[in-house]
């Protein structure tokens, strides 16, 4: 009985597929007629377009926008606006189907006009978290101004599992509104994950005013904490010697990830006075720490290289192995 039912469904699906393939061929035919009209670049004749279904116009307009950059893209976007693509996508954002809304949102993210932006802002209150996040990403991409605290609340950032997408979003906002993201770091009651992500996002901006804050956070963090390596990593990326105290402390942390991050940061900032400690770390029991320490010593220049050469000649065991191989890998004289 069950297998007969499954077979009947399957036969029905094959028939439906024949019908959808027929519709698909009509869709492709309509596309073929539309392509030259849109590629011409000039304003398309609406009367000619009348015979082409709306969804074909929408799909092709979005595909063309994705394909090109610069003036051509602007022309395609202007055409899409004239053909009512943003309005149709905004309407689809009211669909009950989450998938339909997500597809419409992907389209809206490609466009740049008031209707699309308004629809994206409305999507920040969508009942689905992924759609809210995607809308925020699209708006950040367009350089829209956010109230960061409000955004954190609306997206529920930090209340779920940490995500790299959050870092990407905050990084994008930090490009145009660094102070808003800085506010997230400095807010006293901030969720830890949001704060760490904000720090990571800001480390790309080269805003040195954050160095004292991150240094204090790093010094206060426990060895086992997940965030300590991320603080040290951010200090390294900022590349300011103000982070020295935290980095030196990090070199002696009980956490492997923190020691490795601190070694990397020491190399990036070129903390010459860390050379000796980095030399000691060539003997660390963890390979990653030895590797990062050797890398950092090379980045320190002559002071580091002499430590490395000493380890290569006079050292023993893992330290010697790390020093000899790293020098050879970088094509340096032992």
């Amino acid at each position, binding site marked *: 009985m069950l297998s007969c039912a499954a*077979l009947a*469904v399957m*036969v029905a699906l*094959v028939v439906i597929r024949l019908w959808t*393939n027929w519709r698909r061929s009509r869709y492709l035919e309509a596309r073929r007629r539309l392509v030259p009209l849109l590629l011409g670049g000039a304003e398309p004749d609406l009367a000619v377009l009348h015979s082409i279904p709306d969804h074909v116009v929408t799909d092709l307009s979005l595909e063309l926008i*994705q394909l090109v950059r610069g003036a051509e893209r602007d022309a395609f976007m202007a055409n899409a606006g004239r053909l009512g693509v943003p309005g149709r996508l905004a309407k689809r954002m009211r669909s009950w189907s989450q998938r339909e809304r997500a597809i419409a949102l992907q389209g809206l993210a490609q466009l740049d006009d008031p209707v699309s932006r308004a629809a994206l802002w409305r999507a920040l209150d969508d009942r689905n978290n*992924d759609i809210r996040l995607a809308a925020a990403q699209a708006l950040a*991409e367009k350089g829209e101004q956010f109230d960061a605290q409000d955004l954190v609340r609306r997206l529920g950032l930090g209340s779920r599992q940490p995500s790299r997408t959050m870092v990407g979003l905050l990084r994008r906002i930090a490009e145009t509104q660094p102070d808003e993201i800085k506010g997230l770091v400095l807010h006293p009651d901030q969720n830890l994950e949001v704060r760490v992500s904000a720090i990571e996002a800001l480390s790309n901006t080269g805003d040195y005013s954050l160095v004292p804050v991150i240094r204090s956070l790093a010094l206060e963090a426990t060895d086992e904490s*997940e965030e300590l390596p991320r603080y040290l990593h951010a200090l390294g990326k900022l590349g300011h010697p103000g982070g020295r105290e935290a980095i030196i402390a990090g070199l002696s942390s009980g956490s492997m990830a923190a020691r490795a991050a601190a070694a990397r940061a020491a190399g990036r900032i070129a903390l010459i006075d860390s050379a000796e400690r980095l030399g000691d770390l060539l003997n660390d029991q963890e390979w990653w720490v030895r590797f990062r320490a050797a890398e950092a010593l090379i980045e320190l220049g002559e002071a580091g290289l002499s430590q490395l050469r000493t380890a290569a000649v006079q050292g023993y065991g893992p330290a010697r192995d790390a020093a000899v191989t790293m020098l*050879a890998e970088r094509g340096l004289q032992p």
Partner: protein
Amino acid sequence: MIDFPPWTYQAAEIVTGFVIATGLIQILVYIVQLAFAGYALHRRPPLPSTTVLWDRYAEVAPPIGVIAPAYNEELTIIESVEALLALHYPEFEVIVINDGSKDGTLRRLVDHYSLVPVQRYHELALQNRPIRGLYANPAYPRLLVIDKENGGKADAMNAGINVARAPLVCVIDADTLLEPDALLRVVRPFIEDPLRTVAVGGTIRIANGCRIESGRVIEARLPRNILALFQVVEYLRAFLMARLGLSQMQTLMIISGAFGLFRRSSVLDVGGFSHNTVGEDMELVVKLHRFMRDRKRDYRITYIPEPVSWTEAPESLSILANQRARWQRGSLETYRKHRDMFLNPKYGRIGFLGFAQVWLVDVMGPIVEIAGYVLVPPLWLLGLISFDHFLAFLAVVFTFGVFISVATLVLEEVQLRRLKHARDLAMLTVAAVIENFGYRQLNNLWRVRGWWQFARKKQGWGTMVRKGFQRP
């Protein structure tokens, strides 16, 4: 009519009842998997285009080391490596491991890419046969070739993982064809849930019959060979129903060695791929479960259907028989090695659901089914069991078998629609029905052979003669 003593009737009914009950429980497990798979497919986010994915993930996607072990791949290695180097992903390194090939695999790589010996400081955390040399060329910064003594696939993958410096490692077979955006798609769980995700598996599809150019599947077609066609149905069932369903239940027990993405540090924590098994891919996933659960860590091992890789399926009975016997041995070896996890409350749903599934489908399944074929029809012919019992057995074997296969196809068509032509769909439907009459029984016979080899402690992989992908 022979008159048997009364106890023989009872014994025959018990045996038949056991066979039918085992079959019914298996079917129930499949139906539950099907339901979970359907739910997962319904809930999955829409497929963004590669451009959208790139815009979304490029800045936050962690580097990946692609580990490609190669043994006697002289004929195809350049095409495979070219395809790997052309993958769309922001930061990745292709590490090809020449596992002591007897042909000119290394020579071809060295000549084609003008590679020179290099030194690289690398970890020795995992056990592997000695590395003879590393080769690279600054003109191809994404390519590193490891030449090592032969030690088998697990050994080669361990060597690659030791040398890799990326936080994520993608293990593949050298002849696996990855779709250009496969890495960008398979990395999604590591971006969206980076702390908990330790491993992700993607879909493997059969490339036989497809149009392939420069290591890329240009047009998906069904194979003309009937064995390969049956395997298309099998793979669909294995990935779309079983793995997706089990992943949704958080009890995924295997990520195929032909395409899987792992957090490198987690692989190191469990000692990498084991050498003493032919089911090293399944065993690695079970070790990860054990390690995480022993330490009471919150973690995720996930399968997602979108990232697709393609592989060549055997088209001859003897090679297919060897492969299936080997897979069976692999499952049994993993089960034996970790049997203390079975029904152990300490391992939660892995012990109760994951291992119960392995026990039912992989350990008991083939033996009980073959026993059913051998015993039930004669028992009925001898009048030891009723016709109702015999019918029940046939229903369990054939009717439900057809249902599960066709229902998976329904799921594929409703949710994914990856087959281009209605004709292909119809052909697969026919294959899904007729595979239950002959192929399925043969498959179970091969698996029983795997059981026999396992019992006799046979080691090794046997031979897999590749026909080579169809080229224009």
